[in-house]
């Protein structure tokens, strides 16, 4: 337990209204201090419920969980002193008629027991670290991404030891998202911060997370490093510059999956074996076709994983 920043043991949560459903079904895992831990899964998998339980906003039906060494049920107030929180509706959740700086000051001093001078210093420091230059602009006048940046700063300003972020990169442009990721990595490295985040952004998960968990209908289907998750994609990927349907490629040797769009990604056990057959398909034979062969990405693994859960080999 000493190294664990978050310990979850057999957490169950069930809802019955409007339709009975199981949100979490015996979830267990450990997050070590100084780790960035990603929660992945499709909508409704139970990620937000889990974050809410760990943030003391919801009570579990069964099981136990500790955050920063404190029981989330019996020692909720101690947990609340240790955590930062950036929830799902975050970019609306500040005072629109105050500036970004005033918001940060108000939330940290009034609700998080930070001294005013410390809060002012910390706001400057965070803004500098995240490359945010609009501290004195009214919150309402900020763009969606800038608002989200303020909310991320709000979750960090009081120096929590564990931070929960529900889709932190939502609304951020790629550059801002990268700055946030770099800053979080720095805090993790230099201050030993532990971050638990939900995300649908595979690039973010791959870049940021030391460990990740894949949830489906409240069950843990995978816990481990992103690289290991990626390997679960195991196949090679052939990208074809046009749309191919499932029935057109079913005879491809070693085919384990397909993602069709404007282009098609074919997951095969061995690309060298599959390519000659692929090029003989009626849609491709004798035509100029652009092909690319590569290893699986985390996103591929995610799609394969999610599709596998739907009892199909075809993603």
């Amino acid at each position, binding site marked *: 337990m000493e190294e664990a920043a978050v310990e979850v043991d057999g957490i169950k*949560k*069930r*809802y*019955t*209204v*409007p*339709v009975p*459903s199981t*949100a979490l079904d015996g979830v267990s895992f450990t997050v070590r201090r100084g780790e960035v831990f990603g929660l992945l899964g499709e*909508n*409704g998998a139970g*990620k*937000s*419920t889990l974050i*809410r339980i760990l*943030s*003391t*906003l*919801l*009570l579990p*039906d069964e099981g136990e969980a500790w955050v920063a060494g404190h029981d989330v049920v019996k020692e909720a*107030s101690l947990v*609340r*002193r240790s*955590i930062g*929180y*950036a*929830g*799902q*509706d*975050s970019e*609306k*959740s*500040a*005072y629109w*008629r*105050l500036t970004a700086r*005033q918001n940060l000051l*108000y*939330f940290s*001093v*009034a*609700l*998080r*027991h930070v001294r005013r001078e410390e809060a002012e210093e910390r706001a400057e420091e965070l803004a500098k670290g995240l490359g945010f230059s609009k501290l004195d602009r*009214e919150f309402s006048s900020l763009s969606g991404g800038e608002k989200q940046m303020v909310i991320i700063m*709000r979750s960090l300003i009081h120096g929590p030891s564990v931070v929960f972020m529900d889709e932190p990169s939502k609304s951020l442009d790629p550059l801002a998202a990268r700055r946030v990721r770099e800053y979080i990595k720095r805090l993790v490295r230099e201050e030993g911060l532990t971050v638990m985040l939900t995300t649908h952004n595979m690039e973010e998960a791959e870049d940021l997370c030391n460990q990740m968990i894949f949830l489906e209908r409240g069950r843990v289907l995978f816990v481990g490093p992103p690289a290991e998750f990626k390997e679960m994609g195991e196949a090679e990927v052939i990208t074809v510059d046009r749309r191919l349907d499932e029935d057109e490629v079913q005879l491809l040797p070693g085919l384990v999956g397909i993602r069709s769009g404007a282009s098609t990604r074919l997951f095969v056990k061995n690309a060298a074996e599959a390519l000659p057959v692929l090029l003989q398909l009626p849609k491709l034979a004798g035509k100029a076709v652009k092909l690319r062969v590569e290893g699986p990405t985390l996103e591929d693994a995610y799609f394969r994983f999610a599709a596998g859960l739907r009892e199909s080999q075809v993603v």
Partner: protein
Amino acid sequence: MSEFFRLVGWMTWRRLAELFRYRMNLVWGVLSPLMWSAAFLLLVPLYSTMEMSSAIGTADYGAYLLLGLSMISFQSVALWGGSNNFNWELTTGLIDYSFSSPVSKYAYVESVIISDALVSLVLYDAPFLAVAFYLAARVLSLSGIAYGMTAYVLSILVLSQIGVTFSALTLLYKNVSNLFEFFNMAFQFLTGMIIPLQVLPGFVRVASVFVPLTFGIDLSRHYVLSSSTVFPVPLEWAGLLLQLIGLGLTSLLVFGFVESRARKNGFQYVRVRLARRGQAHWLTRSPRESALEQRDWPNEGKHTD
């Protein structure tokens, strides 16, 4: 206690920062009560009749009325400040942030109400009170003001306890604004806020005992203006204190219940279920509304009853 004062201080700071950002609105907000209170000075003699004087025990009917009227805005913020705040927090999602903070949630909602009342007192109600004191200058004493304001502040505290309960109701039922109309009328007519209870029928005076604020308004008028009281003074003090204790305990219990329920079900699904004709009904939403809510809050908890 220091947490409570810190919350009140910072919430007041926030309210003022928001108000001072929009100068035109602020200036108009301050000018408006100044103009109305000045107009009142001119109109008061018309209302101060002998009949009224003998009924309320003072000739300063203008001041008498102003002390009651100034309570209207306090009534509004005390009853609805917390409720409006939670309504907004539920809409924006801020409630998750505030409820994951280490401050007491009861202190939090009480601070919302008190800070609103303070801002209202300083910016909007001070002119009415100043005119009331001016009109009552003849009979005004420091001890009278001290006792009168004590009763006044206690009334606001009593009201804020109802405000905490209404805030809890907002968490349960999401939209309780129509309750406001009912209580608004009851508070304005049954407390003697506008029309003195002394000139109303006996049954209204009996009903007024059950409405918080009656004793507070009556006592503050009595001490500031030396007016007669509807009930014996010791009885009114006892009633005021009992209301504070009773409603305080009720609001603590109700808010604690709702808070624990919120932790069980999630804020969007904190509701109570009533059995009606052997069948359970959700009080707040039709199936269609529930479905729409599921769409809007896809990852939110669902009810567990």
